[in-house]
């Protein structure tokens, strides 16, 4: 199963966006919507062509994606690690969970003024914010996943004298995986959102920077183009996780039902 075939399977989902684009084009063409507020899809496509040919778009995407995925890697791994630790060790959870829950209730975007003072406006500031944003969904879902592993299975593992290593990799992690992947999908949403906010506030390169520049020059077509790019990147990341979900959770009855229908 390739990514393309998943894309093809979901073709029904693309009818609505295509229809909206078509109506939108007509609305702008007939002056029902003013060009000044909303560029037509064709002018956005034109802007896209320009930016692609000049290589600007590619560079901006690379810079933004690097920020996003560095943050995801750092925040995701630490969230996963702490989730596992707290899931396994009752003591560890007793000491850390309250603190983590308190930090979780602070909207991470509220830390932007602090982050700017700490890190300035360089890459670290954005990576820090993204990492903080993705940490909690992955932490919470990993913890939940580990805690909801069927205790009967762990007991079976004990009776069959599995090593701790085996208990962990054969029972706990696979049992927690559905929940972890849900956390990852949620984290990807938070990741793009955080990045957009961070890049809009302070940056000197990347997609957010391109948007801010375009706004200053009233290039509304570029603004809309970048919004579309964000949508595509978000969808792409989600599709990748869904692809892994299908591969890794093929044993799961709910995925087997999907395969039959």
């Amino acid at each position, binding site marked *: 199963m390739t990514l393309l075939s998943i894309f093809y399977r979901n073709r029904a989902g693309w009818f609505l966006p295509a229809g909206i684009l078509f109506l939108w084009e007509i609305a702008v063409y007939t002056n029902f919507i003013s060009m000044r507020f909303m560029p037509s899809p064709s002018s956005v496509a034109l802007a896209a062509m320009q930016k692609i040919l000049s290589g600007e778009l590619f560079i901006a995407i690379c810079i933004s994606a690097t920020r996003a995925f560095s943050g995801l890697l750092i925040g995701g791994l630490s969230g996963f690690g702490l989730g596992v630790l707290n899931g396994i060790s009752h003591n560890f959870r007793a000491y850390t969970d309250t603190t983590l829950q308190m930090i979780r209730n602070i909207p991470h975007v509220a830390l932007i003024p602090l982050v700017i003072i700490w890190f300035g406006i360089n890459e670290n500031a954005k990576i820090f914010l993204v990492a903080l944003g993705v940490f909690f969904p992955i932490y919470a879902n990993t913890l939940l996943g580990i805690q909801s592993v069927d205790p009967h299975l762990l007991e079976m593992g004990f*009776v069959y004298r599995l090593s701790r290593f085996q208990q962990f990799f054969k029972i706990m992690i696979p049992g927690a995986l559905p929940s972890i992947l849900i956390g990852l999908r949620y984290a990807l949403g938070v990741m793009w959102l955080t990045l957009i906010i961070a890049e809009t506030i302070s940056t000197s390169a990347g997609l957010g920077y391109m948007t801010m520049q375009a706004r200053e020059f009233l290039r509304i077509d570029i603004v809309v183009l970048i919004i579309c790019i964000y949508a595509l990147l978000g969808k792409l990341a989600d599709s990748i996780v869904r692809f892994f979900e299908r591969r890794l959770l093929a044993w799961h009855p709910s995925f087997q039902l999907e395969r039959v229908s």
Partner: protein
Amino acid sequence: MITFDSCKTLEPHHNLNNAQIRSTGNNVDLLLEKIAKSFDNKPVLKGIDLSIEQHEFVAVLGKSGCGKSTLLRILGGLEQPDSGRILKAGKSYQADKTRVLFQEPRLLPWLNLLDNVTLALPDRWNKEKSRKMAHDILLKVDLQDQINSWPSYLSGGQKQRVALARALISTPQILAMDEPFSALDALTRFNMQHLLEQVWIENGFTVILVTHDVGEAILLADRVVLIEEGIITQNIAIDFPRPRKVRCHTLNDLENDLLDQLLKIKAA
């Protein structure tokens, strides 16, 4: 009656009171001495004394809450007794050669049958060998064609057969079972009982079967032990020849006697 000749060696009125108590001491392999266990100061087992011979099939009967499952969990190493001791061949008992079959199959849904069955095998890294072993053991429970399937494709009875195969592949000395067939339908249960008797005869391990099904206990066991409120009150040898038939008269008499005894406890 066709089925009657399989039990013709027995006196027609087999009664609980004159049922012979098996003499112990000759060939005792597993010895339980004054096993007691409480949960939250509520005594569940109040001094269980039981000796079991090698290759014996012992059924433990009792109504729910009598402590029979706790006894099994102690044998499986899942609980420690508060007092008393267990000896295996004269030495302190270790549960590592005991395999437990639970009421639910407890297969890992993310592993196929091959990996489920070879889960606890010491040579599971030797792919060739472990695959061969898994195939042979699944052949015994007639599931060799499903070796690459996930458990979710199997029926309840098939899953329990895989669980049995998983227990057998590591050649246990003791197979401890906690009502392993009670969740199955009557026909599947009948097949499983037959299969269990077969592999037990072939493999020579000791079986301790906890059940509330009197018929099942009499059909399969060499000896039936009745637990009432944490102590053993009956210890009856069942010397009927095998294979036993469900419709045999003497078996039915004994079943009725035992059932009466069980119901009496419930009323008390």
